[in-house]
């Protein structure tokens, strides 16, 4: 891509490459150990089982890239499943009315939190914590029990399989992939995306450079809210029910996926492809544990914790190296002045 390409990977790709290597090693180890693991369908199943998490993690990536955090995503997912189920079953609304409504609601919740964060200068952590309580609380005002969904559209989304070359995925995976592609385009090729990186790099500078900090910051929380709602819709396809206890702790999974995908929690650095890899790492851990049968489910959490630790310390080391070299080493990128043109 660069005008003067070099053979060494640029420093900013190191975390993503590390995640890719980790994923390859985990998959390789799984394939060696369990015969059926090598089947390509296993990888596709990782996507089938985690499509909703992928969508949520995409929204989280936007937020974390600006240096913020969104704790409300799991609750918004739950609220979406609950509201969809309730509208479909109790109010007998048609799907084409329910879908836009729940997506809009998610985006609105995000918008509201974004406005409070930006205009009242309250930490994202605490605002989205309130949002988390609010969304879960709203779930229980609808019902404290699980509501099954038997809408034909929902059923068809749950049951149908998209086949390609002997393998299959669910429609939700396709939705998730579209979301990933759109998000990657937005981050890489639009002003909004670049402003997200700029704000994450230095909010003060972004303001002084005349970038629309307010609009961008509110936009990322809106995007995260929308992605959570969409993730909730996908989860309701997967579960065919709405329940206030769905997606408890999903915010942690989403944050973990983003961090393991190499995005700096302090903002400004990371790629969407890393997030996809991060979600896959989480999915493969679960798959290995399911395949093994003797390993217990809680090892998932412990392994995720260890990975978080490794990646966070890695980030810390990279950051420390960066700050040390920047002011003290002018030789790192020599300034080359071309000779003034002869006149």
């Amino acid at each position: 891509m660069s005008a003067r390409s070099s053979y060494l990977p640029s420093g900013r790709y190191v975390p993503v490459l590390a995640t890719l290597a980790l994923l390859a090693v985990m998959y390789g180890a799984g394939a060696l150990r369990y015969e059926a693991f090598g089947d390509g369908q296993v990888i596709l199943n990782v996507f089938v089982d985690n499509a909703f998490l992928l969508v949520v993690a995409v929204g989280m990536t936007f937020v974390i890239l600006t240096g913020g955090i969104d704790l409300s995503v799991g609750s918004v997912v739950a609220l979406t499943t609950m509201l969809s189920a309730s509208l479909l079953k109790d109010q007998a609304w048609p799907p084409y009315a329910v879908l836009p409504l729940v997506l809009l609601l998610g985006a609105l919740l995000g918008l509201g939190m974004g406005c409070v964060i930006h205009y009242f200068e309250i930490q994202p952590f605490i605002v989205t914590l309130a949002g988390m309580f609010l969304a879960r609380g709203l779930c229980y005002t609808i019902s404290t029990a699980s509501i099954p969904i038997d809408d034909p559209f929902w059923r068809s989304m749950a049951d149908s399989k998209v086949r390609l070359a002997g393998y299959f995925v669910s429609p939700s995976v396709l939705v998730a992939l579209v979301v990933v592609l759109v998000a990657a385009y937005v981050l890489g090729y639009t002003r909004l995306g670049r402003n997200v990186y700029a704000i994450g790099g230095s909010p003060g500078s972004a303001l002084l450079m005349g970038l629309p900090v307010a609009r961008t910051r509110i936009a990322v929380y809106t995007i995260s809210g929308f992605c959570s709602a969409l993730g909730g819709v996908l989860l309701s396809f997967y579960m065919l029910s709405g329940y206030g206890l769905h997606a408890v702790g999903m915010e942690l999974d989403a944050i973990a996926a983003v961090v393991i995908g190499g995005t700096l929690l302090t903002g400004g650095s990371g790629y969407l492809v890393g997030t996809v890899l991060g979600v896959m790492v989480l999915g493969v851990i679960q798959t290995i544990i399911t395949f093994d049968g003797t390993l217990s489910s809680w090892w998932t959490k412990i392994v995720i914790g260890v990975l978080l630790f490794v990646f966070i310390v890695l980030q810390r080391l990279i950051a420390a190296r960066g700050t040390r070299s920047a002011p003290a080493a002018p030789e790192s990128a020599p300034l080359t002045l071309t000779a003034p043109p002869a006149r």
Partner: protein
Amino acid sequence: MSRETDAVRDERVVADGESDLVAPRGAGRMRGLARHRLLWPVLVLVLLLLSNLIFTPGFFEIEVRQGHLYGSVVDIVRFGAPLILVALGMTLVIATGGIDLSVGSIVAICGAMACLRISDLGDQNEVTGVLAAIGLALALSLVLGLWNGALIAGVGVQPIIATLILMVAGRGLAQLITGGQIITINSSPYKLIGAGYWLTLPFSILVALAVTALAVLLTRRTALGLLIEAVGGNAEASRLAGIRSRRIMLMAYVFCGFCAGVAGLMISSNVSSADGNNAGLWIELDAILAVVIGGTPLAGGRFSIGGTVIGALIIQALSTTIYTIGVPPETTLLFKAVVVTVVCLVQSPAFRARVFRRRAPRPLPVAEKPKAEVAR
């Protein structure tokens, strides 16, 4: 005892001093009272308790049955004890400018460890064995606090991120200890901690009192409180004044781990079982909420242990109230959302500036900053 009153007087003096600057109008003593920083939390708590009278006429009745104290108000304190404990530790951590998300996991781990050891005992009522189990669990909580502190003060990871690691992995560890099962025990000495009575009082209240006293002692009898407030208020100035801020932060996280450990014992003892998955779930959020309601700003600096205790009681009273008036208990979350929002908005300088700007121009530039809330 004089130290306690000193601390209290300190708070009043600060409040008085500020009121002179913030509100030049108004009359003497009322003004001082209105500006006392515990006023609002106390008022909310009292209102909450009074509102219960509407639904439960005998709400404030307290009786002694078989030498044990009973009553709705006693229950609020009793059930609120674990939250008080966790919130106490959280107060010190937040005062240093940090946060600890892992307390819920520590609660689960310590409860699990204690129950596991007790379930291994030949005689579960053997006091020394139970004490050893408690000791081991508390030692574990100190180690976990140390781990958080080392990551934050030693490696220099942001607190919210560093404690996220243990928050995620800790649940797994707790389940690892319990083997994924709910360990049920039948040990009367252990049951004392969470559900027993001593001198007519519920033992858990006594434990909460003791740890509160410990916290007050630790921070106001020694200079730890001052140093914590200095580090949280202005880290660079503290460094130049010769404060070893890393050590101070480490101690705050260790104390926070310890408090969570005690809470873990209490919660598991109350139900005589350890559930790695659900014990102390979301208690970190309630604790942070209690601290903020109690008037300690999230940005660090000045902290109020009394405020935190009241904050925790408000949250527990809220849950109890909702339970007694027959609304589904899960909707407590809605109320919490409202409370968090209101408290944070009121604390936010930007919000005050936007909302109150039109009402009255500020008399003095000093008044620009609300109480004890200077971000570093």
